[in-house]
């Protein structure tokens, strides 16, 4: 492209750069905690996750020390049971998922040359909820309150009868907000990758990491709701005795396992895919050659994303389910192995295509180490996917070895490569190559010495989760070796921390430049506002293929070189082929998301120890903070359209299906429906297990047919009223008296439907504690209540906005959000009516 063809001309107007700086200046001093810029949030987020990695690692060392010798009494049985639970929980929920989200928040805007992702406050909220809640959760290990049911918390062991006290509640509620935090991150990442790419970056030109994060976030949307439902069910059974998992009353302990692993297995790939994406970014840079098989890597990511949902039962091969079911899930487990093969070969091919020789730097060492360890983990993965082999190795140290190979190999090694590779982007120094090699070799050797022997330990009979073992079974030497290896591994991590202290000096103004001569946009010169102007992209490695790109971007010759509205903003493009659509205006630093995060975490934690009143106060403050947060978001079209260069004039306000808010609400609806699908599965599953407690034989008769029909009509009337309400929105500056009554009527219909559905069952004599059927019936009402509560709040918010003149037929995003969620609520409630009133009638 010739110089004169660039979108904006030189020289840039006076004060343009200063305006940009002013808009994006991060808060100073301790007010940094109010920051919402991805670069600040990203660093804090990664730091917090790494802290949890260290903490959980220390627990692992305690366990390894205890197991070094047979019949050791270094720690007590009870403490050991607590620390392995906390180790697993922390590594899975407080380290792996958050650190990957953190990398997304940190790297994606840079890779997409976006000023920021579309919901920066949501990221800040996710971060602080996670930090506060995570630290409190972890600290339970210090005062004997830590959960001790294992990280997958199987009932009945975790029911009140076998786990009295608050320990298990800390897991169930403590994990609750981390799930919410993960979903908040997922919304951010999906809308971010699809809508804030630079002009010209079509899906086919998207960096692999962005693909990986997109699929990562999509998987979170589907997987996390299952575990959210599971934790709700278990906590409700613990607190109120609704028998979802109690076999005597028609429940089934295996329901938990289905729900948990429907989340739990994809979780492994949720962790692995982004790491693989990072590797796919680093290998080409080190090879100085584009990624071989880009398309196939995308295939692998998509296929993994799907297949990983079809093999949850392979954690349940030994539960005695029918052998053909085992066959199906074994088949799916085979299927998911193939995409990993594709990626490994793609990396090998890229390495082989290096321009000169593949550069052996610290990141490349970690990647090569990863390739080896991950291959071994994959191979043992195939072994455990073979049903008969799994009968022997399931729940033994073989499996412990396998998943540490997959998770440490597949995720931690790429993560350390990432640290060495990307720190120059956000630090004034690179990390030390010399120390880095030591870190790598200590970690690589330590890891293999520690975990390879565990394969054998497991095969010769050692089950996992044992705090001690007899000395005469031949496990002694292998365990000692594993412990020595664990310390070597820890020494490597310690050396890394030293390196970090010595060399890492955070900065937002561009870091070291482009030390690896990589081809992707995160290496553009930048500042707190990301890059000065947003480039037009014509290939997958623009820095290699578009000469002078860095210079032109830095001089402001590409799109949106300033801050025309005076605030933070970036370009929103179309999802497939990245055509600019409008300018999104984003909020700056603020307290509301911080307060909301702290009090949401507070709500869950106080609820864990059954301090109900303080918990409700906390929830109230959380809601207030959310309202304050939301009040300023819909700023309206007051700034008018903006010229971003090349004569492209974009609006600064968007409603309807093109707006980012609409997309976020859609993602939220997918999450909610995924939760409801998990509920549907649970209902039908329990019916298959215990049809004898179902109405009308095992329980009181269903309410008369009048009840569901009346309720359904209420729902339909409500949805209709809300649609009419939308039509009634006045033009800007005008009033329409009918809006509030009509919209309010809609909202009231939904509330009435909620009450009617509940009352119908109550009047029939059915009680939730009676049996699994009763519990499931009232659970549906509970889920409806959640959705309707959110809807009612959105509706109240919209009405308040209308009354203050901030809602009209142009500035209507608030209303649209409420209406969409109401339509979803209507669908969920109608489906629920068909299920609860229709199914038992048909099935009997």
């Amino acid at each position: 492209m010739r110089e004169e063809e660039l979108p904006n001309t030189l020289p840039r107007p006076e004060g343009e750069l200063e305006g940009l700086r002013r808009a994006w200046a991060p808060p100073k001093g301790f007010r940094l905690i109010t920051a919402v810029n991805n670069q600040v949030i990203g660093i804090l987020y990664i730091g917090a996750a790494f802290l949890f990695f260290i903490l959980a690692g220390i627990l692992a060392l305690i366990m390894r020390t205890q197991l070094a010798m047979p019949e050791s009494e270094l720690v007590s049985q009870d403490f050991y049971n607590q620390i392995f639970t906390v180790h697993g929980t922390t590594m899975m929920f407080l380290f792996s998922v958050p650190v990957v989200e953190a990398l997304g928040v940190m790297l994606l805007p840079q890779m997409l040359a976006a000023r920021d992702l579309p919901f920066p406050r949501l990221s800040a909220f996710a971060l602080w909820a996670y930090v506060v809640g995570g630290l409190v959760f972890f600290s339970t290990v210090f005062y004997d309150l830590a959960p001790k049911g294992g990280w997958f918390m199987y009932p009945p062991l975790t029911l009140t009868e076998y786990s009295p006290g608050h320990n298990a509640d800390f897991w169930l509620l403590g994990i609750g907000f981390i799930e919410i935090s993960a979903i908040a991150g997922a919304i951010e990442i999906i809308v971010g990758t699809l809508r804030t790419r630079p002009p010209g970056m079509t899906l086919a030109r998207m960096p692999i990491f962005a693909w990986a994060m997109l699929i990562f976030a999509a998987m979170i949307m589907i997987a996390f709701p299952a575990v959210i439902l599971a934790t709700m069910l278990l906590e409700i059974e613990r607190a109120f005795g609704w028998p979802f998992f109690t076999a005597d009353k028609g429940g089934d302990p295996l329901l938990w396992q289905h729900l948990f692993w429907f989340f739990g297995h994809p979780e492994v790939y949720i962790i692995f895919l982004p790491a693989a994406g990072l590797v796919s970014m680093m290998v080409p840079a080190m090879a100085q050659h584009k990624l071989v098989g880009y398309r196939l890597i995308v295939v692998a990511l998509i296929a993994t994303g799907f297949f990983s949902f079809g093999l949850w039962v392979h954690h349940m091969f030994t539960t005695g389910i029918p052998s053909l079911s085992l066959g199906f899930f074994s088949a799916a487990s085979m299927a998911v192995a193939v995409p990993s093969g594709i990626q490994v070969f793609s990396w090998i091919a890229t390495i082989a295509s290096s321009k000169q020789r593949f550069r052996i730097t610290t990141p490349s060492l970690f990647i090569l180490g990863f390739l080896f360890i991950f291959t071994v983990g994959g191979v043992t993965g195939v072994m455990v996917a073979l049903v008969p082999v799994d009968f022997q190795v399931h729940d033994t140290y073989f499996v412990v070895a396998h998943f540490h190979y997959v998770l440490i190999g597949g995720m931690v090694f790429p993560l350390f490569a990432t640290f060495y590779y990307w720190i120059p982007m956000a630090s004034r120094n690179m990390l030390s190559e010399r120390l880095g090699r030591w870190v790598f070799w200590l970690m690589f050797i330590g890891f293999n010495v520690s975990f390879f022997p565990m394969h054998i330990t497991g095969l010769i009979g050692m089950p996992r989760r044992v705090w001690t073992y007899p000395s005469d079974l031949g496990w002694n030497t292998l365990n000692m070796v594993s412990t020595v290896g664990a310390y070597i591994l820890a020494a490597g991590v310690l050396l890394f921390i030293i390196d970090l202290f010595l060399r890492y000096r955070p900065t937002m103004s561009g870091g070291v430049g482009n030390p690896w001569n990589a081809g992707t946009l995160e290496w553009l010169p930048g500042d707190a506002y990301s890059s000065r102007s947003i480039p037009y992209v014509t290939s997958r490695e623009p820095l290699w293929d578009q000469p002078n790109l860095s210079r032109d971007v830095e001089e402001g010759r590409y799109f949106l070189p300033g801050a025309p509205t005076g605030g933070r903003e970036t370009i929103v493009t179309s999802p497939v082929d990245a055509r600019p659509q409008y300018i999104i205006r984003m909020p700056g630093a603020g307290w509301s998301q911080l307060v909301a995060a702290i009090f949401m975490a507070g709500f869950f934690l106080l609820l864990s120890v059954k301090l109900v009143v303080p918990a409700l106060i906390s929830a109230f403050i959380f809601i207030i903070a959310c309202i304050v947060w939301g009040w300023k978001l819909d700023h309206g079209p007051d700034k008018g359209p903006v010229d971003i260069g090349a004569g492209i004039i974009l609006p600064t306000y968007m409603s309807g299906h093109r707006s980012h808010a609409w997309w976020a609400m859609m993602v939220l609806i997918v999450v909610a429906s995924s939760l409801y699908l998990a509920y549907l599965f649970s209902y039908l599953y329990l019916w298959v297990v215990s049809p004898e407690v179902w109405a009308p034989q095992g329980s009181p008769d269903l309410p008369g047919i009048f009840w569901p029909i009346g309720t359904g009509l209420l729902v339909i009337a409500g949805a209709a009223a809300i649609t009419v309400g939308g039509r009634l929105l006045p033009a800007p500056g005008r009033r329409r008296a009918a809006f509030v009554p009509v919209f309010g009527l809609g909202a009231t219909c939904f509330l009435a439907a909620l009450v009617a559905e509940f009352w119908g069952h109550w009047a029939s004599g059915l009680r939730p504690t009676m049996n699994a059927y009763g519990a499931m019936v009232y659970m549906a009402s509970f889920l409806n209540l959640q959705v309707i509560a959110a809807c009612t709040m959105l509706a109240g918010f919209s009405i308040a906005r209308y009354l203050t003149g901030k809602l009209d037929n142009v500035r209507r995003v608030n209303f649209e959000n409420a209406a969409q969620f109401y339509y979803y609520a209507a669908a969920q409630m109608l489906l629920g009516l068909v299920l609860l009133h229709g199914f038992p009638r048909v099935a009997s």
Partner: protein
Amino acid sequence: MTGFDDLRHPDKSPSVIAMFIYLMIGPGLWGLHLTLVYSAHTLICALGGSSDLSATFVLIATFLVAGPLLAIIIMQRRFGRLLGLDDRLSGRTIYDAISRFTSVLSLAGILWAGAAAAIVTSCAQGR
């Protein structure tokens, strides 16, 4: 500034839903197949249906899903056009390749599950 003309028509963007379906059709059908065979098999066994009924159902379902998927793999571009994706869309060959290979992998997954039904007795406890 001809290079940017294309960017001025935001409405010419292809539908994201169509693209989604195009790329995910294979895995989608695989998911449908797994759901179908797993739930039907479980239900038939739980309700005391015969082992043969379950196996037959699974094999028929496998045939019914694998067939169309094979057709889609063979008639890749036509399927894309059916979804309204322009042949001249930037990066179209890449999307084609992604769609084709995800479908191939899914086909393998479906056939494996079908093979299980052909070999293993339905409804026997897992041993």
